[in-house]
């Protein structure tokens, strides 16, 4: 027998020691040990160990666990925090000026962040509001096309119907298709994009029905309308039961309004205004050959993989149809990621949000946040150094460093909370409405019922509190009381960190100003840029082939019409891209069909050759005009005798036109071909109005129109309007950038102001004495001046260098071809920054100049 003393399992004993309330530990541990040795004799070592462990585990209960239950301690903590808050508020109030500067800066930054957050969230989080959203999938299939397997977001109609009928786990199937229709009321007509979908639409998706029963959509003769659409049609009349005629394709049908539903939120990919029974989409077509988007709602608790596995059997069915389209596999794309993956899923629903504006906004918001935070760090540090005596005394009395840090962070927290509240007000009342005007979006700040936003605000609060408050708090709490009272702590020292932050602020400001100035420059450039043709005083009227001649001859009687030309697609309004071939080379380019006169009428200058000749019948069949970009693209030495092949027809080039912009400036100029056609094929008339009568002419022609064609609506636009949208976008961007630049300048100026003011205040007594002895204000402030002007100058130089790089990148992505970032924007920005800095410092100088030394020396 070994004389080894058996011991209880160590881990269990330690565990007991760890959790057990120290007051109870001795007796409990004694008991379990005694039991162990007793069992050791009775039942053997194994059993004893096991029982010991079991006892320890059983003893792990609330009454035995160590915990802090001292109630007096708790209330004391609350008292401390109350104290922190009280002192914090008093300090903020005592130093009103810097506190206000900080708060304004922070709240402006918060406002910017909120706009950016709302916009980005709105763009990224799509289709997330459906109750059953996690069970809804877009049906997709993979097919081999263009030498590769791609995913397509639709099924052939027959396949979709099969899923509806045969597959377990699929609760509902909604098919969804859109096409343009014309809705005709008694006296008006509207062009709409209608959705052709099944009655399950409202069961599957969470769109609220306002009037009517959603079941009525099961019938073919009923349609659904969105609320705003219904209002547009019937004003305030009750819409249910009203009759409308809808022209789908070439057929016209009578429908009764059965349902009016609430408009989908903006971040919905499905936003139909008119809902029609799907049979009207296919009419009599073969269901195998027509296609539709199919949404599948799975049964609750059914795994996607399971359903997906079953659905694969449809691949064979589809391929059994013997169509061109062979499926490789069937897929299911969750509703919520459908829009995000729109690039991958061809012909699906939804679209990928544009990244450029999101990145720009995020950059602006973080710029502002950085500026404001740096301001805060600087000013808070400077402010805290003025409280150095307080810190010393607190420490002597027994304050721990941690407590001082908490005190400073609490003050910071109060300020940040205030700033965030003000920032929310700013955003709701000013930033977001303005931004909506600029960007044409409909953002709203709904703090109370927007969980993500609440989380964001909370996160922002803590981020700001720590990002801006940590450095000042740790910096000032580090001072040693002995040194403070001996006067050895150099508070007014150089503080390189503060200066570096200030420099960085000015660099950022410099970059934003350059961006703002450049965008103004480029906008002006673009707005005054020649379009390559004469867009002035031209009115474009859309017609149909039937009323073309009648309207034309009527309109020509109008004395305000100077000239007219006909075309199939008009410049900058309808695009038609075709593959063009010269010899072996092939390009895709713009294909414009018009009468022979149109290019000349639009005043597109001729570079070589001739315009179309109306008298030559061959010009109508085999001649084309090309632009300079065409010549360049196909590397033509001489246009004469060049044959262009478009859609397997051959054309002779008879002339070269000067380049003109047929789409936006950003897109640049690509090859374009003008083809003359007989009038019988044309559907658009462009009128040259007598100068100054354009608007009158439009109204007169509308009257003329009603005589010729009372059925369809008059549709016309000014040629000069076709790029209005593009200019609007550019102006919007310019406004955003200019606004950002002004904010950045304001913030850095405030930062500078605060710092200069604090550094002057700290030495006010010095100044007083010097002034009594006859020093001038300038000589007093010489070193203050020197230090800050060095920073500003350095920032101007460094900022210029950086701005050239950064702003060029921005301009390329926004404007395409742009003016270089040269001396003009850089010079203007530098000048602006220097003036603002000089003004800021001089306001402070005034304080010193006007100071009465007697006053300053008397106090304290």
């Amino acid at each position, binding site marked *: 027998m070994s004389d080894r003393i058996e011991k209880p399992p160590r881990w269990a004993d330690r565990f007991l020691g760890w959790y057990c309330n120290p007051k109870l530990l*001795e*007796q*409990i*541990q*004694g*008991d*379990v*040990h*005694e*039991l162990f*040795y*007793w069992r050791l004799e009775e039942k053997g070592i194994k059993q004893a160990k096991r029982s010991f462990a*079991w*006892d320890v585990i*059983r*003893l792990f*209960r609330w*009454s*035995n666990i160590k915990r802090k239950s001292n109630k007096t301690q708790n209330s004391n903590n609350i008292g401390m925090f109350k104290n922190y808050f009280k002192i914090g508020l008093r300090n903020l109030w005592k130093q009103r000026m810097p506190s206000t500067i900080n708060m304004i800066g922070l709240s402006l930054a918060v406002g910017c962040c909120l706009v950016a957050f709302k916009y980005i969230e709105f763009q990224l989080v799509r289709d997330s509001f459906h109750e059953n959203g996690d069970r809804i999938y877009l049906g997709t299939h993979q097919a081999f096309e263009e030498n590769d397997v791609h995913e397509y977001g639709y099924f052939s109609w027959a396949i979709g119907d099969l899923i509806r009928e045969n597959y377990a786990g699929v609760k509902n199937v909604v098919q969804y298709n859109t096409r343009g229709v014309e809705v005709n009321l008694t006296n008006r007509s509207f062009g709409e994009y209608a959705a052709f979908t099944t009655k399950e639409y409202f069961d599957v998706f969470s769109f609220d029905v306002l009037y009517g029963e959603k079941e009525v959509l099961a019938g073919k003769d009923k349609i659904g309308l969105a609320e705003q659409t219904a209002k547009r049609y019937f004003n305030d009349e009750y819409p249910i039961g009203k009759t409308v005629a809808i022209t789908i394709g070439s057929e016209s049908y009578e429908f009764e309004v059965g349902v009016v539903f609430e408009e989908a939120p903006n971040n919905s990919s499905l936003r139909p205004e008119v809902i029609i029974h799907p049979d009207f989409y296919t009419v009599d077509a073969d269901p195998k050959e027509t296609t539709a988007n199919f949404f599948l709602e799975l049964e609750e608790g059914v795994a996607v993989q399971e359903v997906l596995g079953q659905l694969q059997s449809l691949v064979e069915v589809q391929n059994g149809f013997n169509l061109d389209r062979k499926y490789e596999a069937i897929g299911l794309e969750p509703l919520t990621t459908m829009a995000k993956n729109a690039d991958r899923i061809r012909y699906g629903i939804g679209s990928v949000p544009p990244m450029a504006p999101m990145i720009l906004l995020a950059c602006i918001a973080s710029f502002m946040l950085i500026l404001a935070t740096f301001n805060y760090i600087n000013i808070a540090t400077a402010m805290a150094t003025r409280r150095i005596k307080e810190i010393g005394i607190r420490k002597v009395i027994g304050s721990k460093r941690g407590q001082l840090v908490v005190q400073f962070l609490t003050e910071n927290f109060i300020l940040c909370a205030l700033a965030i509240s003000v920032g929310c007000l700013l955003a709701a009342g000013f930033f977001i409405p303005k931004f909506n005007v600029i960007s044409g979006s409909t953002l709203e700040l709904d703090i109370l019922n927007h969980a993500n936003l609440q989380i964001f605000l909370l996160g922002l609060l803590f981020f700001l509190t720590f990002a801006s408050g940590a450095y000042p708090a740790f910096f000032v709490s580090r001072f040693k009381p002995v040194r403070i009272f001996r006067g050895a702590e150099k508070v007014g020292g150089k503080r390189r960190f503060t200066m570096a932050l200030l420099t960085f602020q000015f660099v950022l400001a410099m970059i934003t100003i350059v961006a703002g100035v450049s965008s103004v420059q480029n906008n002006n450039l673009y707005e005054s840029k020649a379009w390559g043709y004469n867009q002035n005083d031209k009115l474009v009227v859309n017609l149909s082939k039937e009323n073309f001649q009648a309207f034309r001859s009527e309109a020509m009687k109008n004395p305000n019409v100077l000239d007219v030309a006909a075309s199939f697609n008009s410049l900058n309004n309808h695009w038609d891209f075709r593959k063009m071939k010269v010899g072996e080379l092939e390009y895709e380019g713009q294909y414009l069909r018009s009468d022979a006169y149109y290019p000349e009428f639009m005043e597109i200058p001729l570079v070589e050759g001739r315009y179309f000749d109306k008298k030559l019948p061959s010009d109508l069949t085999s001649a084309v005009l090309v632009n300079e970009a065409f010549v360049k693209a196909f590397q033509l030495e001489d246009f004469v005798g060049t044959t262009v092949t478009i859609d397997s027809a051959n054309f002779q080039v008879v002339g070269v036109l000067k380049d003109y912009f047929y789409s936006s400036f950003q897109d640049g100029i690509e090859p374009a071909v003008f083809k003359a056609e007989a009038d019988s094929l044309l559907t658009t008339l462009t009128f040259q109005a007598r100068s100054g009568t354009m608007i009158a002419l439009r109204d007169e022609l509308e009257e003329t129109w009603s005589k010729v064609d009372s059925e369809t609506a008059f549709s016309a636009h000014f040629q000069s309007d076709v790029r209005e949208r593009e200019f609007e976008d550019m102006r919007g961007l310019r406004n955003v950038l200019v606004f950002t630049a002004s904010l950045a300048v304001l913030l850095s100026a405030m930062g500078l102001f605060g710092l200069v003011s604090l550094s002057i205040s700290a030495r006010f007594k010095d100044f007083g004495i010097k002034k009594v002895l006859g020093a001038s204000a300038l000589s007093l402030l010489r070193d203050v001046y020197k230090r800050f002007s060095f920073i500003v100058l350095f920032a101007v130089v460094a900022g210029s260098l950086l701005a050239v790089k950064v702003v060029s990148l921005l301009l390329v992505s926004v404007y395409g071809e742009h003016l270089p970032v040269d001396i003009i924007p850089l010079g203007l920005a530098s000048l602006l920054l220097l003036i603002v800095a000089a003004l800021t410092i001089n306001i402070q100088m005034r304080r010193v100049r006007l100071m009465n030394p007697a006053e300053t020396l008397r106090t304290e």
Partner: protein
Amino acid sequence: MKGTNIGELEELVLLVVGVLYEGAYGVSVLKEIKEQTGREVNISAVHAVMNRLEEKGFLRSEMGGSSSTRGGRRKRNYYLTSSGRATLDQVRTVREKLYNQLSPSGSYSFSQ
């Protein structure tokens, strides 16, 4: 008097503590219960019950001596208080009163 009501295990522990008189602490109570009734009770249950009884005022405790098997740790000794004793008496009276009212004849269907 709801406050003096005690559960079955509580009653058992209370009795055992009374029986052991001077030597009642966790392990001895546990062993005594096992010997006298054959019931295996976990030590944690014994502790919990004794704490509860002490809170109710039926037991009082003080730290006692140590022994080598406990690794030198002291034990907490428990004693029956007068109110504990009164409760036990009361429980017993109620029980006996009821027991005596049982019909002596075989009118119960014991066979089932």
